[in-house]
């Protein structure tokens, strides 16, 4: 095998590999992008019924309650303009508190309640998810720049 041939062979192999990877990535992107919405975004949007997305905002004060099964919790996510009720069956992250930023992943039920499959944990209490900060800025409720 000459050097030229080997080069061609390698080039072909790399291009083929890249094409496969690009195809894989595109297919995977189609189904697996999670969009981030604030409660106000949801007012303006109609979503496909089973579409999963991330909901972010603040946990509304005095909205947190346990449902009667003892496991499921219910709270309201607000961007201080609009609100969305959320139910979640699971253990909340340690830093979950009323008045704090939160990002929940799941889908919107037909009755307008967001059913979360994950509530994201943050490692640091001073850390505000950037999307939440942006959403609050958009609704004009952002206070201070910590």
């Amino acid at each position, binding site marked *: *095998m000459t050097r030229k041939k080997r080069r061609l062979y390698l080039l072909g192999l790399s291009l083929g590999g890249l094409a496969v*990877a690009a195809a894989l990535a595109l297919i995977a992107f189609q189904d697996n992008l999670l969009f981030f919405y604030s409660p106000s975004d949801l007012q303006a949007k109609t979503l496909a019924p089973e579409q999963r997305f991330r909901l972010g905002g603040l946990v509304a004060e005095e909205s947190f309650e346990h449902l009667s099964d003892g496991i499921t*919790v219910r709270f309201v996510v607000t961007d201080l303009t609009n609100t969305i009720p959320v139910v979640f069956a699971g*253990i909340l992250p340690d830093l979950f508190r009323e008045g704090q930023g939160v990002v929940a992943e799941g889908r919107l039920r037909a009755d307008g309640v967001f059913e979360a499959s994950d509530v994201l944990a943050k490692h640091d209490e001073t*850390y505000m998810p950037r999307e939440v900060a942006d959403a609050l800025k958009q609704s004009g409720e952002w206070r201070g720049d910590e």
Partner: protein
Amino acid sequence: MIPELGHFALILAFLLAAVQAILPLVGAQRDDPALMALGRPAAIGQFAMIAIAFLALMYAFVVSDFTVSNVVENSHSAKPMLYKVAGVWGNHEGSMVLWVLILALFGALVAVFGGNLPQRLQARALSVQAMIGVGFLAFILATSNPFLRVDPPPLDGNDLNPLLQDPGLAFHPPFLYLGYVGFSMAFSFAVAALIEGRVDAAWGRWVRPWTLAAWCALTIGIGLGSWWAYYELGWGGWWFWDPVENASFMPWLTGTALLHSAIVVEKRDALKSWTILLAIVTFGLSLLGTFLVRSGVLTSVHAFAVDPKRGVFILMLLALTIGGSLTLYAVRAPALKGGGLFAPISREGALVLNNLLLAIAAATVLTGTLYPLALEAMGGGTVSVGPPYFNAVFMPLAVPLVAAMAIGPMLAWKRGDLPGALGRLKAAALLTAIIALGTLYWQTGGPVLAFIGIALAAWAFFGALTEFADRIRLFRAPPAENWRRALGLPRSAWGLTLAHAGLGLAIAGMVGTSAWKSEVIERVGPGDTLALAGYELVFDGVERIAGPNYSAERGSVTVTRNGDTVTVLRPEKRWYPVARMPTTEAAIRTTLLSDIYVALGDGPDPTGGWVLRAWHHPLVPWLWIGIAIMALGGTVSLTDRRLRVGAPRRARGNAAGGHPQPAE
């Protein structure tokens, strides 16, 4: 006084690095041995200065000097000593000092052990290493001074984030940085070789141990981080495809590729310009990781507190380093002479396949990690790319990679015999089939992919063992002969077997826990019982306890199986009053086959009930064991005699305290 000394030492280190970056390079261009010789003392001096700064900062943490603002923000007088020390790198400023300390350490090691390198190559490599140092020392001095004072000093500190107060995480950053920054060696030598316009087998032999050492450290670092996430975050996950995790995984992937392609450079004098490119890309991805973690451009659970100034600075360093080195590469790479020829089916061919798949995998991970940034920049809305994307793109690339992993080492250099290699793997194939069918029999349910995963794991594991058995002529020669051959094998052969078999074990762990974990979550009162994967978990109640800098509620859960008590698990919910943060401490009972994992949730409710969440994670211990064996394999390979030929031994103990010495 001591913090000021530290600050002063950092400034001196910056100046020394500037000298080291310029003069040896000029010397190498002008062929002036005196200027080139400056690089070595400068490298050692730079390391000594940064070490003084680092020790000064550590001293401030150890004695809880609350006049230093960094100590105030990240420490507390009641914190256990281990975490006072670990607190040094548990924050942005301190971890940057550790970063440059390790960078300078590698430079100093080249200066001390590189006596037999061609002087010009050594001078240039030291210069490049110092350029990186100049950039990051300037970054620390300009935006992240760890020695800032506060006046008046507070009575006590704000404590380290309690989640970080954990033995696993205390050692996670140093290993991770040893890995990240260790790749700077390969980078510096690659750039030096480009300036020189020459890459030969000696270059490969010199670069490989550094890459291997960095790879081992990065493997351990990622493993520790994953282990920590598993037991500390209280939900039993070990990998989330979080941007920051990806940031450490991408250099690991390309670093693994580099490790393998450097073998080809060393043994066959081929794949040179590709190896140079990999070295540049690997360190570039390490820098990208540093940027992602510290700039806050991506939403991540791991992000440091964010300051946009810092992000811009690191982005500039990143652009300069990668842009500069790639430009140099574009100009110089065509001049690198290719070496030995090989057929597609050969050891070289298999290593090329390994490199292609690893590089493509790294590219897909990079795409997924940066896609949200790109989309947002183009006004496409805020998105996150979650685990489903990464699983969908990564698995199809990992399958052929692992499948080929068992075959590659069986092929000869230059021209391999594929049917012959497959024939020698018959026993491994048979064992793999038995394991896959056995899994199918024992585990009803679970996705089909899981059986493929287990089969792959078994194939990788038995394939690695077959190669070893072949080499020692197991079953074909008397045991004494086997033993003699095993002892006579080069350490790198042991390393190969260990690393490949370890990966097999790790894959089995990943597949086992992903496919067959079971979970219960229930509200329980004292005396209530949960059933989990054949075990019974009896909740005994909760007591209050006090720790050094926290108070906790400790649950007691008795685990029984068929009426026999297996163990008593004590999950905790801790409250750190200074940091005003709760943490969940899961309790884990491990057998070598599976873990029982219990976390305490919300409680108590008005009737005294607690939410209890329990998992059964099959095979998950194999994940950590496998990673440890991989790192062990790399370390064993480092002790290979061959690698010492290029770098003879010097007196022990100079300038290398406690660091894995690649040349030893």
